[in-house]
C-alpha cells in the first residue's frame, strides 16, 4: 500500500516540515512563551555548549587523566585546586553554564512531553527550584571553602590539610 504524502496530516504518517502550520493538536500548547526569550535561549544553548566543551574536558583531564587520576581525589586535592583563583573561577563558570544549559534543556523536554498545563507547571516549578538550590549551593561552597582546618587548640588537622597549610597557620 502506498501513501501519498501531500495530504497526510496524521503524525503516524510522518512529520510536517517546520512552520507548515499543520500541527497535530496534541502538540499545541496554551500560553507558549513569547517574544525574544526563545530566541535568546536558543542562542544561549549554542554559546554555552561550545564553552562547556572546553570547561568540562579540562575538568575531566585535570581530575582523571593526569597525576594519580581517580585515586588522587580527596579533600586535600580540592583544597589544592581551589587555592588557585583560576580554578575557582573555572568551576564557578562551569557550574553556572552547565546548570543553566541543563535546566533550559530540561525545560524544553518538559514542554515536549507534558501535555497537561498543570503537569507542565508542576514539573517546571520543581525543576527551577532544584536548579536554583544547586546553583546557590555550588557557588557558596566555592567561596566559603576553608582549606586549612584546625582543631580547637588551633593546630592543623593532621592527614587532611594540604601541604601548603603548613607555614600559613602558626
Amino acid at each position: 500500500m502506498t501513501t501519498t504524502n501531500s495530504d497526510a496530516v496524521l503524525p503516524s504518517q510522518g512529520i510536517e516540515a517546520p512552520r507548515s502550520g499543520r500541527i497535530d493538536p496534541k502538540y499545541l500548547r496554551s500560553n507558549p512563551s513569547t517574544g525574544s526569550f526563545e530566541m535568546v535561549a536558543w542562542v544561549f544553548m549554542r554559546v554555552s555548549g561550545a564553552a562547556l566543551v572546553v570547561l568540562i574536558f579540562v575538568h575531566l583531564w585535570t581530575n582523571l587523566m593526569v597525576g594519580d587520576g581517580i585515586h588522587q581525589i580527596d579533600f586535600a586535592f580540592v583544597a589544592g585546586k581551589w587555592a588557585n583563583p583560576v580554578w575557582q573561577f573555572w568551576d564557578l563558570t562551569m557550574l553556572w553554564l552547565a546548570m543553566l544549559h541543563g535546566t533550559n534543556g530540561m525545560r524544553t523536554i518538559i514542554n515536549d512531553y507534558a501535555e497537561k498545563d498543570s503537569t507542565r507547571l508542576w514539573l517546571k516549578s520543581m525543576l527551577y527550584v532544584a536548579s536554583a538550590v544547586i546553583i546557590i549551593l555550588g557557588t557558596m561552597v566555592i567561596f566559603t571553602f576553608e582549606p586549612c582546618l584546625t582543631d580547637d587548640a588551633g593546630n592543623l588537622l593532621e592527614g587532611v590539610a594540604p601541604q601548603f597549610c603548613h607555614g600559613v597557620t602558626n
Partner: protein
Amino acid sequence: MTQTKSTPGGRGTLYKGREGMWSWVGHRITGVGIFFFLLVHVLDTSLVRVSPEAYNAVIGAYKHPIMIFGEIGLVGAIVFHAFNGLRIILVDFWKQGTRYHKHMLYAVLILWFVTMAAFSARHLMIFFGGE
C-alpha cells in the same frame, strides 16, 4: 507536490527513524543523564564544607570498581553530547552544515570511539595500576 514527509520508495520519512532522529534521541538521553549527575555531583562536592572525613568517605565511592565503569559511562555520555552538540551548532551556523549533517554524524561517532578508547585505557590503567 510536497515531499517533506516521506522519501520516495517507502523508506520511512525524511526524519523519522533515520540518522537525524537517532542522533537526537541520543542527545536528549545523554543531556538528561548528565543533568541528574550534575545535581548529585554538586551535592557530593559540597561535603567539603561539612568535613574532610565526610567528603573523603563519599568521594571514596567513586573509586569502587563498579563506579570506575560508571565513570566510563558518564564520560561516554558527555563526549557524545559534546561532539554531537558541536555538530548541531555546525548544522545551524555553517552554510554547508545541512548538506553534510550525516557525514558529520559519522565523524562524531568515529571521534567518540577514538576518544573513549583512549580515555577508558588510561582510566583503567590508573585504576588497576595504583593501589
